């Protein structure tokens, strides 16, 4: 059997237990934190005061801090790149839909909250030129990436372990 076919077999065998992985390592939407839990609630009258507080605290943090936070936010916001890369791995496919694709979508759905909360926080901080951040984000998604994994599941998993 070719190396590629062995990998497909291995992926099939792991897939049998994928629901256990989803249940053990991922958290349903209603149970997990959502961005709004950590941000001023705009339905409340205290909203403006809370935003003022964020803006005051933000003044004290230095430029290097904001640069790192911006870079991290843009990295998180480039989530479409990561999802399409994962869905392209040998043994993961949506047509027909398999357990791995379900894993990837559920993982993506969780990850999506990260860029969301960071983006809103940056916006409220008053320390960042959001238009420039948005332009960099649009570019990064356009440019994609090359991690050197090709569509090999083994290499791709090593990458995701390392990066998380």
């Amino acid at each position, binding site marked *: 059997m070719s190396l590629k076919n062995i990998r497909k077999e291995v992926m099939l065998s792991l897939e049998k237990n994928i629901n256990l992985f989803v249940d053990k390592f991922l958290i349903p939407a209603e149970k997990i934190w959502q961005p709004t839990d950590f941000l001023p609630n705009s339905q409340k009258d205290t909203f403006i005061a809370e935003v003022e507080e964020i803006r005051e605290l933000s003044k004290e943090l230095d430029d290097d801090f904001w640069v790192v936070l911006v870079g991290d936010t843009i990295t998180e916001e480039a989530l479409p790149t990561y999802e399409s890369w994962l869905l392209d791995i040998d043994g993961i496919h949506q047509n027909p839909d398999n357990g791995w694709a379900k894993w990837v979508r559920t993982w993506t759905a969780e990850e999506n909250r990260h860029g969301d909360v960071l983006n809103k926080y940056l916006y409220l901080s008053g320390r960042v030129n959001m238009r*420039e951040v948005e332009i960099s984000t649009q570019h990064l998604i356009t440019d994609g990436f090359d991690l050197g994994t090709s569509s090999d599941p083994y290499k791709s998993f090593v990458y995701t372990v390392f990066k*998380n």
Partner: protein
Amino acid sequence: MSRIIAGDEMRHHQAYSKFVKEIFTIDPSEMMIAFQHMMQYKIIMPAMHLRESFGAKGDVFGDFSAVAQRVGVYTGFDYVDILRKLNTMWEIDKITNLTAEAEKARDYLMNLPDRMYRITERIVIPNTKFDFKWLLPA
């Protein structure tokens, strides 16, 4: 906020490392070789092509990375640290029945953390003041 995000990432990290651990039991030699290939190629940052408005592909990644290192968010020592942890977590020293090629890959991986540590010690992070457009007043 960073802490809650890190919490998510830790859970995801554990899941993906479990996948690798299982593959090590089914297809040990190929998993070892794949691991070695990735480490030899070096783990690149997903934001490798980071750029600013009107800039060229990847033109601010180097500056951003320098800032992240001097702030201490992600340094070469972290990289070495992660490598060590992965070797331990997957117990690559205890895996048996490897092909000759996979044995070589394992040797490479076992020696890599110390080798990278020595290289990292010599890296000097610039103290330059960078002007990122992200912080310019609109």
